[in-house]
């Protein structure tokens, strides 16, 4: 005979004004197997919990129902109370008579009847509850950071400083990411390289950090604390151990191709490092463009290399490493601005994107920091900036705001005015958004001190005439059309998710939104976690961000990783699926339905009529199972059941309601 205790909470007057708590307690006392019931003003308070503890001891209760607020609020509280009373914490059920009853109904009679129904359901369920216990899984103390931009570098540095080994996987030959392409940073006008490259060197020289550049994540198996990640080391064709980075090879290489790092404004060789401050400063051979790989006839770099580091026979190598936690910091791509045919991007060479402008104005860039028209290399006198190209445009682009463009456009316009004294900088804008420390001051300075002209209105067309770019738009504040003869146009293009974001999300088992940005577990309270335990987010792979936000989030992700890695093992939720092997037919339908790959087939041997025979049954990995219960419905033989939400428990609730 089970002995259930029922505790009805008044929640001050929150519940008591619509529900007759004393009456419900009295009625509950009459339910079969309920040994004790009472009501109290605040059940969650210290004395309220003591009421439960005393009653459990005095009345030898073995199950508890608390009728109060939402279990999402106080289930952990009352589970602890049960533990203190010497009961298994999973022998608790809660009836939500506040959010679902007193707060949404006014009629006291109906409210009381409904509250009693909810209590009946909880009692029926708790009678079927079994004690559950948490198991624990070991934590492998090594972290993986995917992406070597500023967010990835910061996360890795913070994790390494806490004393854990961390690997950065970067698909490019060097770390640095987008920030390395930028010239100056708003609002301080710090030189990007001056603040980034020391951090790159820190990362490279930190004994706890391994840089895996020119590598990609191939496959992710396992679960929190024990991810088995297969990493593809792409063939560099250069032996990293022998190479000294002297540069003889790329000086002699005869092949020139457009440099991706310079956004196609400059060139690089077929054996190259993306930029002079690259870390590691060791080249790779771009096999698609290398003469040796195309024709088999060059081989100059191998001949001139003083250390014999060039190795054309290298092949991609796969390596599987175990990690306890993963930080995703894969960054962003730029919106394809050629979607806007009316802006003429791609048709006229003097229409460039913001990132092109960054390369152009960068002292180590293709023009050595001189602002030049790409078409004839002359200095532009009138530069027009068009904001929100792709951002905040549901028709052609993305509906969201890319967050950084207002500020970098103000920065670009300032730089134009600073570098070319007799110049004009005109910005076409929809809104100016400058939320951030010292951001609005920066924008005001561009307008007031540097004399940047802001015109509110969208640009409708840009075309070329007599060597000038005619920018047509409307000044919506003055309500009249505007036409500007410009020498160069800079489009502030939207930040979009990486093209392969969806693919990586599937490998990691994390979710992504309609724009392919990775989704955080909760937009306000869990902004760096994903729904997959042990996988964290940093930087623009989650959504548009500027550098301070990316760095802050990276440090936050690192803190989460360190908290996880600081433990030897972590407790698992006991609400997981369980297999009744006697009934399981081993059909494997549950395997395909499980989103966490938590179910496998295993072979068991059993004795039937005196003979031993082997057969396959499903087996649940409790470390991977998250307790959704989808498998229990798919199972034809009903062999799977979800602990804590068993078929028997749910049906008992349904029956209790129907009585």
């Amino acid at each position, binding site marked *: 005979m089970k002995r259930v205790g029922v505790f009805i909470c008044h929640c001050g007057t929150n519940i008591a004004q619509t529900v007759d708590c004393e009456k419900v307690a009295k009625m509950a006392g009459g339910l079969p197997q309920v040994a004790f019931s009472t009501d109290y003003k605040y059940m969650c308070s210290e004395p309220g919990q003591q009421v439960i503890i005393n009653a459990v001891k005095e009345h030898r209760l073995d199950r508890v129902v608390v009728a109060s607020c*939402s279990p999402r609020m106080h289930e952990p509280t009352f589970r602890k109370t049960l533990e203190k009373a010497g009961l298994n914490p999973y022998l608790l059920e809660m009836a939500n008579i506040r959010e679902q009853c007193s707060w949404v109904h006014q009629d006291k009679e109906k409210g009381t009847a409904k509250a009693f129904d909810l209590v009946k*359901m909880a009692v029926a369920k708790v009678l079927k509850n079994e004690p559950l216990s948490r198991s624990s899984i070991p934590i492998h103390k090594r972290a993986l950071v995917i992406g070597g931009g500023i967010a990835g570098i910061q996360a890795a540095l913070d994790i390494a400083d806490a004393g854990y080994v961390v690997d950065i996987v970067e698909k490019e030959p060097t770390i640095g990411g987008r920030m390395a392409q930028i010239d100056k940073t708003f609002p301080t006008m710090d030189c990007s390289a001056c603040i980034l490259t020391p951090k790159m060197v820190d990362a490279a020289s930190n004994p706890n950090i391994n840089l895996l550049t020119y590598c990609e994540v191939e496959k992710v198996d396992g679960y929190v604390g024990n991810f088995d990640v297969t990493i593809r080391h792409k063939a560099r064709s250069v032996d990293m151990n022998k190479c000294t980075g002297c540069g003889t090879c790329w000086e002699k290489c005869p092949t020139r191709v457009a440099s991706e790092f310079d956004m196609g404004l400059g060139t690089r060789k077929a054996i190259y490092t993306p930029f002079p401050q690259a870390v590691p400063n060791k080249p790779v051979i771009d096999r698609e463009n290398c003469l040796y790989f195309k024709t088999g006839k060059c081989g100059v770099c191998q001949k001139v290399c003083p250390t014999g580091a060039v190795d054309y026979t290298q092949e991609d190598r796969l390596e599987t490493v175990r990690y306890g936690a993963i930080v995703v910091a894969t960054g962003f791509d730029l919106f394809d601005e050629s979607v806007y045919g009316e802006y003429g991007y791609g048709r006229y060479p003097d229409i460039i994107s913001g990132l092109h402008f960054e390369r152009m104005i960068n002292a180590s860039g293709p023009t050595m920091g001189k602002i030049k028209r790409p078409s004839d290399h002359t200095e532009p006198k009138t530069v027009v900036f068009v904001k929100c190209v792709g951002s905040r445009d549901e028709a052609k682009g993305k509906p969201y705001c890319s967050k950084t463009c207002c500020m970098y456009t103000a920065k670009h316009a300032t730089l134009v005015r600073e570098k070319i004294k007799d110049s004009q900088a005109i910005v076409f804008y929809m809104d100016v958004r400058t939320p951030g420390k010292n951001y609005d001051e920066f924008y005001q300075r561009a307008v007031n001190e540097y004399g940047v002209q802001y015109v509110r209105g969208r640009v409708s067309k840009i075309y070329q005439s007599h060597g000038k770019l005619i920018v047509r738009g409307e000044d919506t504040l003055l309500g009249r059309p505007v036409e500007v003869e410009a020498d160069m146009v800079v489009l502030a293009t939207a930040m979009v998710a990486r093209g392969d974001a969806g693919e990586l999300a599937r490998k990691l088992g994390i979710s992504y939104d309609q724009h392919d940005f990775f989704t955080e577990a909760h937009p306000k309270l869990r902004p760096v976690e994903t729904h997959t335990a042990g996988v964290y987010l940093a930087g623009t792979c989650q959504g548009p961000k500027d550098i301070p936000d990316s760095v802050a989030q990276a440090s936050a992700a690192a803190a989460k990783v360190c908290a996880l890695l600081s433990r030897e093992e972590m407790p698992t939720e006991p609400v997981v699926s369980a297999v009744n092997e006697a009934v399981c037919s081993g059909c494997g339908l549950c395997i395909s339905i499980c989103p966490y790959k938590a179910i496998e087939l295993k072979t068991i041997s059993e004795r039937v009529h005196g003979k031993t025979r082997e057969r396959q049954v499903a087996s649940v990995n409790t470390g991977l199972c998250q307790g*959704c219960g989808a498998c229990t*419905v798919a199972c034809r033989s009903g062999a799977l059941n979800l602990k804590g*939400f068993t078929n028997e428990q749910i049906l008992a609730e349904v029956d209790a309601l129907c009585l």
Partner: protein
Amino acid sequence: MSVGLNAEKQGTGQKAWEPKILVFACNWCTYAGADLAGLSRLQYPPNIRILRVPCSGRVNPQFVIRAFQKGLDGVLVAGCHPGDCHYSTGNYFTRRRYLLTKRLLEYMGIDPQRFQVRWISGSEGPKFQQVVTQLVEEIKAMGPNRKMRDPE
């Protein structure tokens, strides 16, 4: 089908018939949405009873059939919006099972409109209120579910 449509009120002199409706709510979205409705004091008819499940994908159609068999007048299964499932894919299974379950109920002679599936996120308190209010009204119009009730 729609046997309940013309059903008269139970007995005379008794209280007017009120439908009893079971709501299976997923823990992560709809249950939180119902909590938000409560927190915002959004009033709705007291005819519904919420049964918490981890995921709408946990709801076995057998539970729905049992509810009708035991005399409930309506069943709602509610979970996260497709694409937003806490468990990535659970509500896609719900969606498919919903269509099949509707067909099955129709075959059994139960108005399939008595069984509904809705997507209500944790931030959609007003939507929760609106969905259950509408559901209660619809079921009221249909009258009591007689077909599968155990003989009294």
